[in-house]
């Protein structure tokens, strides 16, 4: 019963990414959207939260914020809105960490 976790807030602005990362089970997926994409910037203090997690990032939100793919931690998958839909379908349910 894998879950898709959505985080839409910057980890530097609140604790949603921290809570999500610490409660996720193995097999769960994390998708960073909107301001949540900042959490995937390598060398950022919050990047360590993503260690060992299956992480995707919404490409349009990265581009909007001027973050190029080479600025991200390794192993992150970039998806578009169609990929977002696929992630929802592939996981049993969605938890939005608002």
């Amino acid at each position, binding site marked *: *019963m894998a*879950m898709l976790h959505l985080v839409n807030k910057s980890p530097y602005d609140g*604790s949603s990414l921290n*809570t999500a990362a*610490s*409660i*996720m*089970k193995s097999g769960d997926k994390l998708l960073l959207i909107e301001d949540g994409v900042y959490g995937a910037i390598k060398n950022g203090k919050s990047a360590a939260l993503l260690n060992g997690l299956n992480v995707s990032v919404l490409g349009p939100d990265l581009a909007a914020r001027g973050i190029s793919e080479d600025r991200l931690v390794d192993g992150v998958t970039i998806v578009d809105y169609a990929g977002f839909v696929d992630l929802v379908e592939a996981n049993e*349910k*969605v*938890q*939005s*960490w*608002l």
Partner: protein
Amino acid sequence: MSDTKKFMYINRKAPYGTIYAWESLEVVLIGAAFEQDVSLAFLDDGVFQLTRGQDTRGIGMKNFSPTYAALGDYEINKIYVEKESLEERGLTLDDLQHLVWEDEDEDYAEKDSIRLVSRTELGDLMAEQDVLFNF
């Protein structure tokens, strides 16, 4: 009962500073009529929703905290409060309302609705749900 789904209403925000706590409760109350397998989770700042002694007269808002005490009457008796969130915020179970329900299978014996769980246990509970509501 093959149509029954496990619904969890997740509360992570403090009351009064924003409307989410109250409007989330409104969904719970309406949802009770649909006879699904309901539980509520309180974590992060959501634990503040359950504190005793809320007096809202000075801020001119309706005090909706008595509604939590009524949940037992709606047969909602699985109220999970996350330990780590309480501790981080300097709270204990004694700071929260004592929420109860009456078990008609045991002669209406009064039982606690609040179940203190660890973050890991809450994660396990969330994994068992069919639908997760967030506000």
